């Protein structure tokens, strides 16, 4: 049986050259579908990647109860002191807890294309850098604590105007100079960073947005969480940093993913009709050839399978071409969506998704024609012109 499938399929593939343009309908159809799908998904994938890189399973983030984002959360100075003394937090070499009171707010920016938007201005405390080994200064210098200075991520520099070292950012009661730029390889790269306490004063605010801590070990989360949530004075939520950013990333990219799937599905339906068309044509032009094989004793099943295999091979080829185009056009490009600045990505998982969509289309599109091919009475087919 397998041998029969093999022989019939090999015969099919050898005759493909004579049906080149016809077969190209499937290749182009799936190529266009998967190219579009993966191009749109490269935004989602890039954003998710940036957020995933930001989350470290060895860190935990504390926000006030009910807050969905750092911006919605508010932690008073008193509560912050209590939280930073909790067990489960790793101590720095100076004996102080590796914990950082963070500030998080939107700041208006001018994008390179002239449109206006926002990015995130983040406050770091004294342990902000020690908590983040991924943080590297690439140019200029670090902002000084107590001074009205900012540093800027390389992603923000690539996306917005007026973000060079020496440029100024408007904040309440004055403009703050940018004194350095940094690289983190995650979502922070599209943001600006300054000193939390100085920012609080300038903004007339009294509360922090969140507290980020380094756990003594990855499994110390339970200890830390218990200490915070059982304290009746605190109404806080403790989340592992990686889980937090996975959720934020999903929220941020959810709408675009839905749009990509809808557009991709519509195109896939169009490609499916094209696939059906081609496969029916292929079966009918090779009617006599198939009938001859049947007359020689080949079973109906190998014939049907070989027809489907041909469709699958063409569809997967198309999907891979589409994926290659999507990769070449998007992967590595700096992009922006709302307040998220990230690099577009077409990772292997997306390519795999594209290939599985193509498989589904090819199976659906090859099934009916293959049944027709297998069922056609041999005598009729041999007689047909």
């Amino acid at each position, binding site marked *: 049986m397998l041998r029969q499938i093999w022989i019939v399929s090999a015969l099919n593939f050898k005759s493909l050259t004579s049906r080149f*343009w*016809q077969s*190209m*309908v499937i290749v*182009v*159809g799936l190529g*266009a*579908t998967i*190219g*579009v799908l993966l*191009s*749109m998904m490269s*935004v989602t994938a890039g954003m998710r990647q940036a957020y995933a890189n930001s989350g470290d399973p060895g860190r935990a983030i504390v926000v006030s109860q009910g807050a969905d984002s750092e911006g919605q959360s508010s932690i008073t100075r008193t509560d912050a002191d209590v939280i930073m003394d909790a067990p489960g937090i790793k101590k720095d070499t100076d004996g102080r807890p590796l914990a950082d009171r963070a500030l998080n*707010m*939107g*700041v*208006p920016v001018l*994008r390179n*294309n002239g*449109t*206006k*938007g926002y990015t995130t201005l983040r406050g770091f405390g004294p342990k902000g850098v020690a908590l983040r080994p991924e943080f590297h200064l690439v140019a200029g210098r670090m902002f000084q604590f107590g001074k009205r200075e900012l540093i800027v991520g390389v992603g923000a520099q690539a*996306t917005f105007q007026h973000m060079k070292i020496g440029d100024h950012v*408007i*904040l*309440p*009661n*004055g*403009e703050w100079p940018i004194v350095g730029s940094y690289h983190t390889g995650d979502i922070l790269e599209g943001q600006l960073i300054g000193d939390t306490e100085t920012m609080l004063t300038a*903004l*007339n*605010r009294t509360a922090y947005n969140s507290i980020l801590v380094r756990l003594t070990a990855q499994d110390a989360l339970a200890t830390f969480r218990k200490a915070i949530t059982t304290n009746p004075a605190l109404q806080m939520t403790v989340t592992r940093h990686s889980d937090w950013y996975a959720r934020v990333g999903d929220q941020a990219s959810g*709408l675009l993913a839905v749009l990509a799937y809808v*557009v991709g599905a*519509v*195109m896939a*339906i*169009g*490609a499916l*009709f*094209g696939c*059906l*068309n*081609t496969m*029916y*044509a292929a079966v009918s032009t090779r009617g006599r050839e198939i009938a001859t094989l049947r007359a020689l004793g080949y079973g109906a099943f190998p014939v049907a399978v070989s027809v489907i295999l041909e469709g699958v091979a063409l569809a997967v080829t198309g999907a891979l071409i589409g994926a290659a185009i999507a990769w070449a056009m998007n992967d590595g490009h700096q*992009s*922006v*969506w*709302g307040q998220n600045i990230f690099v577009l990505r077409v990772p292997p998982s997306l390519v795999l998704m594209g290939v599985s969509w193509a498989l589904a289309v090819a199976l659906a599109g090859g099934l009916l024609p293959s049944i027709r091919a297998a069922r056609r009475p041999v005598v009729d087919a041999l007689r047909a012109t």
Partner: protein
Amino acid sequence: MKYLPLIWAAILRKPTRAILTLLSVMVAFTLFGLMIGLNATFDSVAEKARADRIFTWPRFGGDGVPLAVARQVAAIPGVKAVTAMNFLPGYVRDPKNQVFVLMTDQNVAKVFGDYGVAAEQWNAVWKDRTGIVMSQFQAERWHKKVGDTFTMISKQVKRADGKTSWDFKVLAVIEDMPQISNGFIFGNYDYIDKAKPLADQGKVNEVDLLADDPATSSAVAERIDHAFANSATPMQTITEKLSRSGSDFGGLDIKKITGGIALAGMFMVLFLTGNGIAESVRERFAEFATLKAIGFTDRSVTAMVVLEAALPCVIGAALGVGIAAFLARQIPGLMPAGFGLPLPTMSPMVMLWAGACAFAVALLSAALPVLWLRRMDIATALSGRG
């Protein structure tokens, strides 16, 4: 027209192929309609934006800026009229039913005169603090008519009495502005201001204004940003034109994306129809030779092939755009209420583009087969060796 039976017969030769081709074309044009329709929506919104209107709000939101900011803005050269407003964000019954009321001062009619609220409707709102004017979309969403009470919960705005619920009276329901897809609700600034604790009173969240001259509005906007840049309350100012400028969707160039998708769909269809027509002509090569032998000119044979290619394209395009129009109307029902996704519109421009693309696809797919037919050697073709 006399060729029509011939063309029809040619198409019906392989009904499966004809139907599948039609369906595929239809799907591609559904996508085309939705994508180009989205562009049309962005274009019409950008076009309807008033060139002289400018929005300014605190760079760093918080609880707003002092009312005095509105007076300072009014004093800036080139500013004609100014209105200040507070936002009342909240929900109705359940947090997922988000709603938003613009609580404006009495100058609002000078700046938003085009919103279609009549003078007596405004006067009613100024007389009754709790009065609101709802656009049709919002009225339908909350099932309200004139005279009804509208109650919403706001956790964001603190009231002096500690309550979180706000009661309003619907004084008027007016038509929607086509460029504001989610409708709008106007209320009275005094109501929200006086309900707040004393320390929070006298604040505004946004100041909207008109420039003397539409041509200077960008300059006026910059002047405002500049005037407040070094103050305790820096402002972020944007002209209505820029804020509604078509191709910006959260920083993504929407037109590039929609155009690319529509183009990919057309490319797919071109291959499909091109192949279909080529096959159809190849199968009937001898028939065409006969036609030419009995005196059909190259022109009429060309016309037949082009028409045969055009028929599924044009019908498919019409059906596809029709489906797109239907789907566009269903989108609001499928999305969570109050979701700000712009809806595609099937403007005449979209139909024109769809028609043009359908013909372009038909012509391109017919090109090669037509060339074969013109160059064919009738004798060889008739002998069946062609």
